Structure formats: C-alpha cells, structure tokens
C-alpha cells in the first residue's frame, strides 16, 4: 500500500512538473516578453537593462527554476490586460463564482443520476433501463457548449423563464448548472447502476426481503447505502472534470468565473493569466486524480497488490 501510494504521489508530481515545463516552454516560444513590455522606439540598451532586471539574460534552466519558485509562492506576474492586477489575484477574485457553479452542477447531477441509476438497475432490461442507456449515450454525444445554447434558446429566448447569462440569484444558476452537470449525470448514473446490480444480488438483500421489509425500503435504504460507495470514490474525478468543464459552460453563459477569465485571457494573449489558471487547474485536476486512486486502493484491496 505504501509503495503504491509513493508511486502515485511521485507520478502526480511528475505530471505537474511536465505541465509547468510545457507552460514555461510555451511562454518562451510565444516570443520575447520584452517586445510586449517595451515601446517600439526602445533602444538596445533598454532591452539589455530590462533583460537584467527580469533575469532573462540567465540560462534557460535557471529561468525555469525561478519560474517554479515564484509559482510555488503563487506569483505569476502582472496581468497585461487588467493593468495593475496580479494574475493570481484575478484568479482568486473569480474563483468563488466557479466553485458556486460547480457545486450546484454537482448537486443537480446527483439528484438526477441517483434515481435513474437505481431504477435502471432494479428494472434491468425494461424501457427504464433502455432510457438510462440512451441518456448515457447522449451524455457522450452532446457537445456541452451546444446544449447550453439550446437550453438558453428554449428557456431564455422562447419561453423567457430564465435569464440567459451573467451571475445573480438562483435563476441565473439553473441553466449553466444543468449544462455543466449533464455529462456527470451519465457518468454517475452508469456507476450507480452497475454497483446497484451487484448489491441487489447479494445475500443480505435476500435476507432483508425474507424478513418482510417493504421492497422500497430494501432498494432505497439497504441497497443504495452499500451501492453508493463506488460512485463516491469517483467524486474527485467528477470534481476535476467539473472544473475543466466550467471553461466551456462559463463561456456560453458569460458566467464571471475562472473559466471565462482564462478564455478571455487566451483571446487577448494575456499569457500571465493563462499561466496562473492553467497551473492552478492542472494542479487541482491532478490532485483529484491522485485522491481517487488512493481512496480506491484503500477501499479495494485488489488494486494494492498489483
């Protein structure tokens, strides 16, 4: 177990390292940062002076170490677009909106996915099960950004029930949260269905039935409680994909979160902000994956042995 965990932790660190190298390397490929900072009429001496000041005259690997050191302190430099704001400060400002959206999306997808998954397992082979399969297939095939626009068109434009964009009360949250949660519905549902099928077949469920416990109680209490463990271990993966998925959803609904920030930054070539967001999201994403593996290995001894 310890060996397994050590390997996985090392792997995650490597992944973050690779990601930081990619980000750093690309920042250098994209051109001399001094070209952006200095006016056109700047003299070669100005370049030299600033090069010294920013440490750009040092060898590349030293620059990389400085970059990592600063990144660890949360310092990614100043935003080019929003003058006078640090890249990390902007991210921190926008983070609550993203977390709000992701949390609500998770709630909605759990509320939808649990009952569908349970019913699909209980009535295996019925049209309920078929409907669940179709939902899963649609979850794989519907582009999230398009689903968002369709929802916006139906509920904001045609019916005029909900606002189409921006952040505000609960009404503002519904459409983006459904768009973001849609993919998770399919994922959670499949997990619930397969683990329910396993539990429904076990001895203690038969015993509960023999004892004369009402069927609804057997299914929703005794079974679901045990079948819920497997989907729970995937919680971190879902959280990770909700974060990266928020980039698309926030763009569709102009939701003022980190996702919209990074897309705007890409469009205006605000590389400092892109760096800050990507490194932070990648860190969270990779950490989530690590958490899942460790949690899973803890709950399922078969994995540890490998």
């Amino acid at each position: 177990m310890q060996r397994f965990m050590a390997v996985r932790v090392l792997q995650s660190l490597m992944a973050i390292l690779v990601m930081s190298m990619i980000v750093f390397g690309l920042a250098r490929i994209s051109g001399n940062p001094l070209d952006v900072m200095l006016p056109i009429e700047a003299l070669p001496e100005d370049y030299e002076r600033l090069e010294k000041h920013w440490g750009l005259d040092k060898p590349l690997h030293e620059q990389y170490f400085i970059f990592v050191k600063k990144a660890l302190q949360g310092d990614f430099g100043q935003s080019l677009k929003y003058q006078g704001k640090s890249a990390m400060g902007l991210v921190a400002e926008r983070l609550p909106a993203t977390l709000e959206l992701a949390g609500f999306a998770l709630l909605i997808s759990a509320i939808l996915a649990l009952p569908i998954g349970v019913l699909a397992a209980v009535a295996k082979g019925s049209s309920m099960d078929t409907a669940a399969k179709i939902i899963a297939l649609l979850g794989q095939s519907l582009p999230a950004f398009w689903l968002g626009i369709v929802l916006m068109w139906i509920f904001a434009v045609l019916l005029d029930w909900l606002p189409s964009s921006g952040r505000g009360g609960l009404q503002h949250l519904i459409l983006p949260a459904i768009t973001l949660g849609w993919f998770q519905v399919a994922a959670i549902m499949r997990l619930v269905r397969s683990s329910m099928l396993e539990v429904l077949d076990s001895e203690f469920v038969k015993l509960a039935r023999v004892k004369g416990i009402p069927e609804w109680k057997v299914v929703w209490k005794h079974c679901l409680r045990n079948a819920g463990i497997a989907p729970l271990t995937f919680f971190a993966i879902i959280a990770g994909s909700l974060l990266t998925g928020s980039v698309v959803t926030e763009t569709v609904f102009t939701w003022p979160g980190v996702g919209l920030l990074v897309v705007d930054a890409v469009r205006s070539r605000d590389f400092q902000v892109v760096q800050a967001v990507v490194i932070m999201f990648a860190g969270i994403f990779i950490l989530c994956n690590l958490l899942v593996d460790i949690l899973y290995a803890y709950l399922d001894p078969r994995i540890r042995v490998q």
Partner: protein
Amino acid sequence: MPLQSSTRTLPWYAVPWIVDGWQKVKRYPLIPLAILLFMLVIPAIFAPLVAPHDAFQGSLSHRLMPPFWQEGGSTEHILGTDKLGRDMLSRIIYGARVSLTVSLIAIFVGGIIGTALGLISGYFGGWTDAVIMRLVDISLSLPTILLALVLVAAVGPSFGTVITVLIVLLWARYARLVRGETLAIKELDFIARARVAGASHTRIMGKYIFPNVVNSLIVLATLQVGYVILLESALSFLGAGLPRAEPAWGVMVSDGRELIVTAWWVSMFPGLAIMLTVLSLNLMGDWLRDHLDPKLRNL
C-alpha cells in the same frame, strides 16, 4: 416479492416497442451507418460538388435569412444564412470536411506514435517499458482543454495547433492498448520460432506482432473519432481550436451564440450536425467492438 421473476413481467412504464426498437438499432447499425455516410463522408469528399453555394463567400443582401419553412426564408438557402450572408447548409457540408480531416490526421498520427511506442514497450520490457509507461500515465493525467488553451495562447489558433494538441492527448491510449496485447503475444510459440529462424526485432514487431493487434486498433480508432470531433469542436468554440475563418462546426456554433435571440438557426444546425455525427460514430464503434474485439468492453 422477487424483482426479476422468470416470466419477466415488465413494469407499467416498459413500452415493448421502445425496448425492441432500441435493441434493433444496437444490433443492426445500418441506421447510424447511413446517417454517418450521408452526413460525414460523402459531403466531406465531394464538398465542392454537393454544396449548393459558396461556403466562404456570402452576399450581404442575404444576411441572416431564416430556414425555408420560416417567414422570410427561401428554398434557395434551405437552412438559412449566417450574418455574412453565407449559406448555412454549404458551410455545414464544408464543416464535415474540416472535422473529418482534423480528426483523421490526429488519430492516424497519434495511433502510429502510440502503436510504435506500445510495441517497443511491450516487446523489450525493462526500463524502456517503465519509461514509456510513465509517459503514458502522465499524458493521460494532463487536463485536455487547459493544455490546448496554453498552446493556443502561445502560438495562436491554427490547424497545426489543434492537431498537435489532439496527438499529444491521443497517443497514450494506443500505447497502453498495444503494450498489453504485445505482452501476451510475445510469449506465444510462433514468436519464439521467428526468433530462432533469425528474424530481427523490428521484423518480429512489425510482421508478427503488429498484425495481431490491428483489430483492437481499428476498434479503438473508431471509438475515438466521435470523441475527437467533440473535442475539436469544443476547442474551436472556445477560440482555442481552428481559426475563426474556417467553416468548422464549433466555430459556427460560437458565431451563433450571440445571435441566439434573432437567428437561432446559425447555432442550432451545426450543433445538430455534431451531435448526430458523434452519436452515430459511438453506436458504430460499439457495434464494431462487439464484433471485432469483445474483450475491449471496458474501453
């Protein structure tokens, strides 16, 4: 009360024809195959012949015309026109070409790299295997969209950028798959005999192991086409994929986003094209997997 009695009494909400219909669709992928052929392959190959209008040049006097069944639409532009007066149907047809080109190139190159590394990894084992497999793990744990965003922020959106991002993301699955199969195949008798007969390592890998993994590769590639089209269109929608001038489906949906109040058709039809294409590709991939290589069930 037993949940599944032997006579299979269906609950009230079980409508038999839906269940049967679905199973038929799953068993005979003719319907998705037909949609696919019709929507993707034929238009992609014959785009200039099939498209009723020029997909790149519009006439400003025909701006934002609705589809023909709506007030103000005409049968000349069956699906309407966009804000530059370009014919929607023609653009969607050219979009099929763009999507197919990008995803096929990315899958092909990614597949070749992955297969080669997987063969080497599985065949030689040892530290080569360890290094390549760690690379696979790392590549699989990189967040897709973010990687594309950084790359585009650095070098700008272009065909090359999108294809590069997709290749970086795709190769690892092939490497893992091929390595697993190679490990099993290299223990078989005929490999040992080939070696005794003096075949070189390259020859053994290329001539004797590779043909035995082709089926799995075809299945994986088919299953990935839909995923790649979805990914490419999401990136294009974000402005981190294909350049804005290209008639890519994701770009078109993005164009229609701000027109949603006045011109719903600009974003609806390209999105519908993405959905139907990916849906039929997924159904076909499932069918291929069941027939060519059932052991890949958990891919």
